[in-house]
C-alpha cells in the first residue's frame, strides 16, 4: 500500500535519513520508535510530502509520489501530489486545528472545499466522527475551548473525515499529560481494531507494543531493527536495548 525506498534526506548538510526503506501493507499498523533526532518524524514527514527528500522513491498504492533520476528526487506534478497526499491523513504533535473555525467547521470545510462534498453530507460525516472520538457534543466549540486531548481527538476526526487510506501520526501524545494521553491512545487503539492502516511515530513504547503489528526502531537515520513486537524485543539489538533501558528509568 505504501512503500518508501532508499530515502535520503539532509538538513543543511547533516544526513537525517540514510538510505531508509519502509513499506506498509493494507490494514497493517506500524509504529516507528527511536530517540529524538533519530529521523523518525522526518521519515513520516517525507512520506507525507511535508519535507522534500534528496533521493529515493515513495509510492502510494500504484502511484508514484516521488522517484529518483540520476540520484536526484523528482516529484509528481503539483495537482498529482495533492491528490496523492489526500490518500494519507496526518495527525500532528501540536494538533494544528484551525483556531478561527468551530470544531464542526474544522471537520466540514476540508470536506466541502477539497472533496466538494455538500455541507449536509459533510456535517453528517463530521458528527458521526465526533461522537466516535467522544466529542459528539462539542461541534460548536472553538479549539481554544478544548483541552489538549480533546483537540487531538478533533484532529484525528478531521483527518478521518477525508477518508484517508493510511493514517499517519507524528508523536500524537507528546504534548499531552498522562491522563489526556490515555484518551487519545484509546481512540487510536479503536482505529487499530478496525484494521485501519496506520503509521505511528511515538514515544509510547508500551502502546506501540500493544497496537502495532510491526515495530520499526530507528537510530541515527537508519532502521536499526524491525519486526513484530515479540521479534523486536527478542532481537537483542544493542541500541534498542539501550533505548528501552533509558525509557524504564
Amino acid at each position, binding site marked *: 500500500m505504501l512503500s518508501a525506498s532508499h530515502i535520503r534526506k539532509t538538513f543543511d548538510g547533516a544526513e537525517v535519513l540514510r538510505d531508509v526503506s519502509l513499506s506498509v501493507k493494507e490494514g497493517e499498523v506500524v509504529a516507528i520508535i527511536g530517540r529524538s533526532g533519530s529521523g523518525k518524524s522526518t521519515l513520516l514527514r517525507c512520506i*507525507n*510530502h*511535508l519535507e522534500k527528500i534528496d533521493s529515493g522513491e515513495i509510492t502510494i498504492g500504484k502511484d508514484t509520489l516521488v522517484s529518483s533520476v540520476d540520484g536526484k528526487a523528482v516529484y509528481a506534478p503539483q495537482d498529482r501530489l*495533492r*491528490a496523492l*497526499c*489526500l490518500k*494519507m*491523513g*496526518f495527525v*500532528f504533535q*501540536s494538533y*494544528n*486545528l*484551525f*483556531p*478561527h473555525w468551530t470544531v464542526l467547521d474544522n471537520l466540514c*470545510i*476540508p470536506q466541502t*472545499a*477539497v*472533496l466538494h462534498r455538500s455541507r449536509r453530507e459533510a456535517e453528517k460525516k463530521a458528527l458521526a466522527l465526533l461522537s466516535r472520538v467522544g466529542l459528539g457534543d462539542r461541534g460548536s466549540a*472553538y*479549539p*481554544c475551548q478544548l483541552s489538549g486531548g480533546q483537540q487531538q481527538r478533533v484532529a484525528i476526526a*478531521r*483527518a478521518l473525515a*477525508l477518508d484517508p487510506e493510511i493514517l499517519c501520526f507524528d508523536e500524537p501524545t507528546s504534548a499531552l499529560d498522562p491522563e489526556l494521553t490515555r484518551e487519545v491512545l484509546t481512540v487510536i487503539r479503536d482505529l487499530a481494531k478496525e484494521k485501519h492502516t496506520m503509521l505511528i511515530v511515538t514515544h509510547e513504547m508500551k502502546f506501540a507494543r500493544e497496537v502495532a503489528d510491526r515495530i520499526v526502531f530507528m537510530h541515527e537515520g537508519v532502521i536499526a531493527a524491525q519486526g513484530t513486537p515479540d521479534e523486536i524485543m527478542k532481537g537483542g539489538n544493542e541500541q534498542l536495548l539501550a533505548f528501552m533501558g533509558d525509557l524504564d528509568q
Partner: protein
Amino acid sequence: MQYLNDPERLMKLLTQLTHGFGTTLSIFAMTLIISLPLGMIVALGRMSRHKLISAPVSFYILIMRGTPLMLQLFAVYFFLPRLIGPIPRLNAVYIAFGLNYAAYFAEIYRGGIMSIPPGQYEAAQVLGFTRSQTFMRIILPQTVKRVLLPVSNEVITLVKDTSLATAIAVSEMFLTAKNMTSSSGSVEPLFIAGVFYLLMNAVVTAFFNFLTNRFNYYHD
C-alpha cells in the same frame, strides 16, 4: 477670547471648520479605500519568492516609509502632471496618501501573515487545500485579527496626517483654521480644529474596539 465669548462668531467658525472637515473626511476615506487593499497587494509582492517582484516592492516601501509624506505630496503634485497632464489638488493628495499608507499597511500585513504558525500551512497542505484556498480561508482570516491593533495605530495617525494636505493648499479643515487664525490674530480656531481631530479619533478608536471584540470569539 474672540470666538468663545461671541456665539455668533463661534457659529461662523464652526460652520467653516465643518465645511473644511468634509474635505478632511474625504481625504481620510479615500486614503483608506486606496491603501487598505493596495497594502495587501504590496505585502504579497514583498513576500514573493521572485526577486524581480520582491526587490522593486522593497524599494518602493523604503522610499514611502523613508521620506517625508509632505515631500511625496509635492512630488505627486508637481511631477505627476508632467506625465499625465494636470490633476486636481485633491486627487494629488489621494494618490500620495494612498501610496504612502499602502506601504505601511503592507508591512503590517506582512508581519501578520508571517506570524501565523507554520503548522497552519502544514495542516492545510495535508488536508489537500490549494495554495489560494489556504491563503484566503485559513491565513487571511487569522491575519485580520492579528493586524487590527497596528492598523488602528496607522488609521489614527492618518486622521492627523490629513492636515499635511495644507502644504499644497487643499482647503481642508486645518488650512481653514490656519487662515482664520491669520486673519483674526487668535489661535482659538486652531485649537477648536484640534478638538475636531480628537473627536474623530475617539470615533475611530471606538470602531476598532468594536472590531477587536468581534474577533474575540477565538484565540490561538
